């Protein structure tokens, strides 16, 4: 598990969430949060699958993620 307090990784991926509930002063002064997202890269580093939540209350179903792994790599 990695920390991205300075939001540098989020910005490198372009996943900074600027909506109302993001960084609303409730997270120790963090000014924004990431869009909850799951990304799958192949061994060449190419993104082959991505699940980007349209709202922060919905997260990737583990079965959906497993299915994506099986579909792309097996």
């Amino acid at each position, binding site marked *: 598990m990695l920390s991205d307090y300075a939001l540098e990784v989020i910005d490198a991926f372009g*996943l900074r969430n600027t909506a109302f509930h993001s960084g609303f002063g409730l997270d120790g002064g963090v000014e924004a949060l990431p869009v909850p997202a*799951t990304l799958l890269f192949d061994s060449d580093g190419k993104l082959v699958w991505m699940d980007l939540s*349209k709202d922060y209350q919905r997260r990737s179903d583990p079965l959906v*993620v497993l299915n994506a792994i099986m579909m792309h790599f097996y």
Partner: protein
Amino acid sequence: MQLGSFLGIIALVLSLGVTAFWFTLARRLALPNDRTGFVLLWLVSVGVGVIALIEGTNFIGGIPPVVAISISSLLIFTVYVSPQTVESSYIIKVGDFIPPFQATDDKNQIFDSISLRGHLVLIKFFRAHW
């Protein structure tokens, strides 16, 4: 029992029941895309709670409707503000290559993405504290 107090208990039971079901689904990562049903039921509990207060309750009898109105209103608000907004000149998309990055792990060690080369990689972004 006063009518207001009875309605207040109804409001609280409805609010807590819907909220409990909500969090059960949330724990299973099974919240539906369309949460209109939840919002409507919370609105009903707010309405019943308001009617309970209008009908009149004693001090103790006023607690359940106030709690119901508070919980339901809060959950409705969280649904209302839940949509994400990504404002960036660049958003990674399928076909792009992983951008180079460094980050700190839970042992305060620097992690460099260069170590991921040659491996299948699954990255999950979420908010958390430690």
